[in-house]
């Protein structure tokens, strides 16, 4: 229950700088804990503290509006980052399918450079490895952090960064393990996923701007 309260308050205070926001969250967490220690229930303690929206309004009113991060933040849900993970997984699978289709077309056209349909199917197995790696890298690059999601430029640069790192590191894995993976297919896959990710993030960003979810 405390976690839910703190998470709600964190969201309401999203325009504050993260260091500043964290200070308030710690204060409120401590206050709730003190109330509980004094003998009241968790539910009552949270009730006494008040509604997160009102608390946030009061806190934010003490700041100059210029100092707040008023860039638009899009949210379709409070758990936007979870939604983003699902979106990213969908993009990666779609890129994988698309790059495979292109390569099958190349095979059928006769420009196959010795590749066979059997070998091509092993590409699909890379999904098991690629998707978790991609998602972890996105986390490392902070692509699911609320501060970064509010800035389209940062998102695009970091998306390119993630894809570049994934490409280079996996190429090295392929080389050192002698695993079969066509460079051409892998390049197409990375380009597709990178482009799709940027396009989707741009669409979501502009939709949210139009909706005024800031």
């Amino acid at each position, binding site marked *: 229950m405390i976690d839910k309260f703190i998470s709600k308050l964190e969201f309401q205070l999203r325009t504050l700088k993260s260091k500043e926001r964290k*200070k*308030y969250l710690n*204060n409120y967490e*401590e*206050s709730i804990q*003190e109330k509980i220690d004094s003998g009241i229930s968790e539910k009552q303690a949270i009730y006494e503290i*008040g509604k997160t929206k*009102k608390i946030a309004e*009061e*806190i934010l009113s003490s700041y100059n509006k210029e100092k707040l991060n008023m860039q638009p933040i899009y949210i379709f849900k409070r758990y936007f980052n979870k939604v983003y993970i699902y979106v990213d997984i969908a993009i990666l699978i779609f890129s994988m399918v698309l790059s495979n289709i292109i390569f099958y077309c190349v095979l059928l056209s006769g420009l196959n450079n010795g590749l066979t349909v059997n070998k091509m199917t092993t590409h699909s197995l890379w999904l098991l490895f690629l998707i978790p790696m991609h998602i972890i890298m996105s986390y490392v690059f902070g692509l699911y952090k609320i501060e970064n999601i509010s800035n389209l430029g940062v998102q695009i640069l970091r998306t390119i960064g993630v894809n570049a790192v994934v490409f280079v590191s996996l190429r090295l894995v392929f080389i050192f393990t002698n695993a079969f993976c066509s460079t051409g297919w892998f390049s197409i896959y990375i380009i597709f996923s990178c482009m799709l990710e940027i396009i989707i993030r741009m669409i979501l960003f502009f939709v949210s701007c139009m909706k005024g979810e800031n």
Partner: protein
Amino acid sequence: MDTQIRKGLIEFCVLTVLHKKDSYGYQMIKDLSDYIEISESTLYPLLRRLEIAGYLTTYTEEYKNRLRKYFQITKKGKEYLYSFKKEKIQIIEILNFIESEGEQDDR
């Protein structure tokens, strides 16, 4: 009461409490609530403002397996509080003036 005046006065109340001894948010609310109406959402932004202005510092101490944040008044904070106390007479005069003029208008 005007919000700004109220906030300004509460600032001095908080500094007065901390002048006696270091304290933490919950305790300060308990100490002050006998005299003024105050909640966490009023207190914490105010404490932050005082901290940024250099009138307060913070430190943490372990309490029941968790950290409790204590606020401590600084030298600058004490000077700020003294300067307010020095102006007390002037403030009282202003309040008396408002009250007396108000009574005359009422008549």
